């Protein structure tokens, strides 16, 4: 798949809450076809402490506006500087990178995301709708003040919500949500993205329920397109590159 490196123009920088923001980035060139689960590598040119690029899932693609969006959680210097970008400034991306979620031909779909892990699910929801599949979402946040974009997700499917402190939706971790305690589990396919511990737990639940489960792994990456061999994860085939053979893996194949 052909890859590109060029500047995008910041169209919007939308603060969701103190820790999260969405960057809508407009391409000066027509966007190539992009699939849900793929990511970009961002050059944070205004942050002296940030030498390597930073990987971010593609949160949404709007071909009409020729934009793609990133949903970013502030963690360190790189994301802090990205959060200060203003409309009109530029951001250099390498994209589109990685494999993508498989698109089921039939069956019921649950998209599961926690924290900034929800990022690729919006795009996946949109994509599935275009393939005439209406997924359900199960989204976990720390608390009500971090809950955002529920109306957006609702466009693409039903939304279940949980917060760690119970301030909105069901109380507790995602994996304690009542969708998992239904007598007959309705989902044939689960797609999950979030912190490692959460993905582990979700994958375990999926296996128990007999549902297929794909997870999108986080990882420390240097290149992001397969040449440095820094980003490996152990699978049934040995060490595989998360940036090329992943970031999306069938959870059953992982030795994590």
């Amino acid at each position: 798949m052909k890859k590109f490196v060029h500047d995008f123009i910041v169209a919007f920088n939308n603060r969701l809450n103190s820790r999260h923001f969405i960057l809508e980035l407009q391409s000066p060139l027509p966007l190539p076809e992009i699939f849900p689960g793929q990511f970009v590598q961002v050059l944070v040119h205004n942050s002296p402490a940030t030498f390597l690029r930073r990987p971010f899932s593609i949160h949404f693609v709007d071909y009409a506006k020729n934009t793609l969006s990133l949903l970013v959680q502030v963690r360190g210097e790189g994301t802090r500087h990205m959060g200060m970008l203003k409309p009109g400034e530029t951001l250099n991306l390498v994209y589109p990178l990685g494999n993508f979620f498989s698109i089921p031909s039939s069956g019921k779909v649950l998209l599961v995301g926690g924290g900034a892990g929800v990022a690729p699910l919006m795009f996946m929801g949109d994509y599935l709708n275009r393939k005439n599949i209406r997924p359900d979402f199960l989204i976990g946040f720390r608390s009500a003040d971090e809950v955002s974009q529920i109306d957006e997700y609702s466009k693409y499917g039903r939304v279940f919500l949980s917060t760690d402190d119970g301030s909105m939706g069901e109380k507790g971790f995602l994996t304690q949500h009542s969708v998992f305690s239904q007598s007959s589990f309705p989902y044939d396919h689960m797609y999950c993205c979030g912190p490692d511990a959460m993905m582990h737990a979700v994958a375990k639940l999926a296996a128990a329920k007999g549902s297929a489960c794909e997870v999108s792994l986080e990882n420390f990456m240097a290149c992001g397109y397969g040449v440095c061999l820094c980003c490996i994860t152990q699978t049934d085939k040995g060490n595989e590159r998360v940036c090329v053979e992943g970031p999306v893996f069938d959870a059953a194949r992982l030795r994590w």
Partner: protein
Amino acid sequence: MADLNINIAGIQFKNPVTTASGCFGYGEEFKEFYDLSLLGGIFVKAVTGSNRDGNKYPRMAETPSGMLNSVGLQNKGIDHFCSHIYPLIKDFNTRVIVNVSGSTISEYVEVAARINELENIPAIELNISCPNVKHGGMAFGTVPETATEVTRAVRDVYKKVLMVKLSPNVTSITEIAKAVTNGGADVITLINTLLGMAIDAETQRPVIATVTGGLSGPAIKPVALRMVWQVYKAVNIPIVGLGGIMNATDAIEFMLAGASVIQVGTANFIDPMAAPKIIEGINEYLDRHNIASARDIIGALKVS
């Protein structure tokens, strides 16, 4: 348009810009960014005698103007290389050189002998400087006697151009350079990574699984330049220079210090287009300074 051709040890490079081993895979991935035939050459990832899984994850840490890696020579071994990789790369319209590693002298010799038979590989780069393996690797490159020994053993079986890549983790780089020259090296590559370490103060743990790893990127450029210059003055064989080259200015600095050819390593991760941009930049520099050929700046540093 200046003449960018460089000939070292009988190998013709269409320009002095090549890509560093371990930072360019086998070139396949870069085809998605640009036409590989633009490049002077490609040094592919280290090949060892048999399959190696490499080190545990995490394998990298970001550091100021650089990074640490501890990939540890992950590769599928020489058999797989000959049967599966060579067919993919043998017709690249650029020089393809294979980086050869091992844990024992006989492993180096075995791999070199096999590659000697691959028609379209004009040279090997003997990696006696990998800091990320428990046995062999850097150990061969830090003692003059063993450096001579492994070079000579490979020289006996390898009939094409023998390049030897040195470790900067030594007291005297010129001593090692002379040692491999005595062992029969045709070309010296400088430098591999500096041995470094990163710690996560919050978890109080090393950032990478192997604790120490190899430091690369602009942070090491001053050390690399110094070593290229020292070796250029000390031995009479050509030098391939690298270590933190990010742009054409950096590349020119290495050539002025004495490198005939340069390699682009970590810079590929920051900008996949780095190598072609450097070629353009060198050309622009030569034109601007009215220098007819890239050859004219090799070792041309004015020290008075």
